[in-house]
């Protein structure tokens, strides 16, 4: 597909051309908390590292109304999902994560909300030229310019962005930009490749995944789980902020007679996640929960969907308040195998 160049000063105009669609982009400050809808006239800056909250929420909002109803009535009203949305500046790892999560949401029975949103979204990626300290995408099948899950990849070439359409949606988007773009020459493409290589080299952290999916269940009783989880707080940070975590809870919430059934992110690191009324809990301590989190990503998911459910974005490492480090855990797993 086509590769185009966009002069950086034309970026605002490019964004303007997208008017009519809902735009999402990382919030303004450098260490952006999350992707947020872009208000009209605003030009999102792309000089961020990565958002703390992954863009998964654009497809799988933290809280989502499934349907509304009046108490006492039987009619249920579904929210209308019809806005075409463009996500600007999605990092390749997060885009990959979308494809990974999608496998589950399309498994057997489609999850209508996710699937619908996925259909409506165009994902514009931004290659990483300066990966973060804890990035290890290259260990788990991704890379700083991985294109999986993207409709369009942007690469920062200094004065220009290189724009590569990867899907039809991407093409359409490029077309809509019309004459703002110029065709990229082979130099630009070469430069990009160089940049990507450099970026890959900057990635220092690494996990070895060979044998891990098959081996993990065998480490069920290994003392490593106790060791790595003793300090865990059982909070939602590592899971909420993980682009591939997708568990949710469903609740009915009512105000007066108005009510809705909605779902919201849940976390397997929470104690009550698996708690039964009898007090019986199949995962009674943080040890089992940590074991489950890692095993789910690196073994169960692989079993089911043939892909590791971790894209190496490093968020869980960066943000865990007590330095529980998935790379370290995997090192220990490897040693134990």
């Amino acid at each position, binding site marked *: 597909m086509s590769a185009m160049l966009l002069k950086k000063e034309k970026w605002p105009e490019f964004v303007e051309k997208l008017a009519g669609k809902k735009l999402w982009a990382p919030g303004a400050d450098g260490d952006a*908390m*999350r992707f947020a809808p872009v208000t009209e006239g605003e030009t999102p800056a792309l000089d961020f590292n990565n958002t*703390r*909250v992954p863009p998964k929420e654009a497809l799988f909002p*933290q*809280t989502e109304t499934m349907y509304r109803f009046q108490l006492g009535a039987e009619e249920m009203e579904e929210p209308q999902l019809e806005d075409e949305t463009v996500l600007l500046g999605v990092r390749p790892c997060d885009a990959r994560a979308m494809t990974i999560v999608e496998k589950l949401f399309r498994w057997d029975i489609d999850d209508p909300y996710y699937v619908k949103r996925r259909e409506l979204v165009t994902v514009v990626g931004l290659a990483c030229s300066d990966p973060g*300290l*804890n990035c290890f995408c290259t260990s788990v099948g991704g890379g700083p310019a991985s294109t999986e899950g993207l409709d369009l990849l942007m690469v920062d070439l200094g004065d220009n962005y290189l724009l590569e359409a990867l899907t039809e949606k991407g093409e359409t988007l490029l077309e809509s930009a019309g004459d703002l773009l110029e065709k990229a020459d082979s130099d630009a493409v070469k430069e990009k490749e160089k940049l990507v290589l450099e970026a890959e080299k900057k990635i*220092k*952290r690494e996990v070895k995944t060979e044998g891990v999916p098959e081996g993990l269940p065998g480490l069920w009783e290994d003392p490593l789980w106790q*060791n790595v989880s*003793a*300090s865990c*707080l*059982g*909070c*939602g*940070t590592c899971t*909420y*902020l993980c682009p591939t975590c997708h568990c949710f*809870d469903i*609740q009915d*919430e009512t105000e007066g007679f108005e009510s809705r059934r*909605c779902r*919201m*992110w849940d*976390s397997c690191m*929470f*104690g*009550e996640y698996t708690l039964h009324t009898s*007090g019986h809990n199949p995962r*009674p*301590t*943080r040890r089992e929960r940590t074991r489950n989190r890692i095993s789910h990503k690196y073994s169960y998911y692989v079993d089911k969907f043939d892909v590791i459910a971790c894209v190496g974005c490093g968020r869980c*490492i960066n*943000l865990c*308040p*007590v*330095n*529980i*480090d998935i*790379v*370290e855990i995997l090192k220990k797993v490897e040693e134990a195998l």
Partner: protein
Amino acid sequence: MELEQLQKTAAEVADREDVKYVIGWKKGSYGYRVAPGFIEDAAGAAELIFSPLCTANLATYLTLVEKLPVPRGQEADDRKVAVMVKGCDSRAVAQLLVEKGIGREEVVVIGCPCPGVVDPELLAEKYPETEETVEIKWTEDGFLLVRGEEEIEISRDELLAEKCRLCRYPNPVISDVMLGEPVETRELVEDEGVAEIENRDVDERAAYWEEQFAKCVRCYSCRNVCPLCYCQDCILDRLNPTWVNRAVNFSENTAFNIARAFHLAGRCIECGECERVCPANIPLGRLNRKLAREVRDKYGFEPGVDPEAEPFQASFKPDDPEDFIL
């Protein structure tokens, strides 16, 4: 305090028969990280450190640990847990004793007089993190950052964590073993962060907090890390009645944050952990400290300084202020 002394003491304590493990700080996996370490025997004690990076309040683990059902015919393991505490952390222990969150006989408190820790965010901002772990030491009047060959002197004011600037209990208020010499205590100073918000008008304050609370992802780190949030079954998790809906939005987030802050009124010992762990960088410390200050100034009460004290929320004085009453 000498590292040797610390490790030696920890080793001795860890080897005691009546002690399950020692909770201390150890080197983290990269950069400035320091991780809580659970040391079961003397050998493990060599991992322990105490440095300006040891921000975590380890007292939280005293109550965080799950009490698994004891299999029939067996007895619960009620050996003591030893925990290393800085001044602020020790107040958590004292307050836990007040509230019977733990029993005195359940803990061995290893006191670490603390010259003040760094603000990790600030540190990383000014001196970018690396993949190697970096050491920071205390000097006479500041910190020394040792990165490979390189040594950087940093003044106290530049990096001192906010909670430490305000701390008046750098020496543990309760301990079984005290390491090193007591450090100089500081005077009560104005809490600028709190004052700055108080100086805004009501609408500005509302706008400020709306922006903050809207960011909350309800990860509950702030609650889980808090040594004084030790209810087995937090009311904010309950459905009947529902105090706070599970939905994550500004309204519920605010309710959650009010409830959390309020439940800690007169109990929060200002260790600053909630603020440190918040992935959304919500200045939770300001909320807590505001209340702590009112509790101190208006009610003459400070939590976690006297393990025998009456709990603030379960006591009153006939002359408590009532200027707000019609």
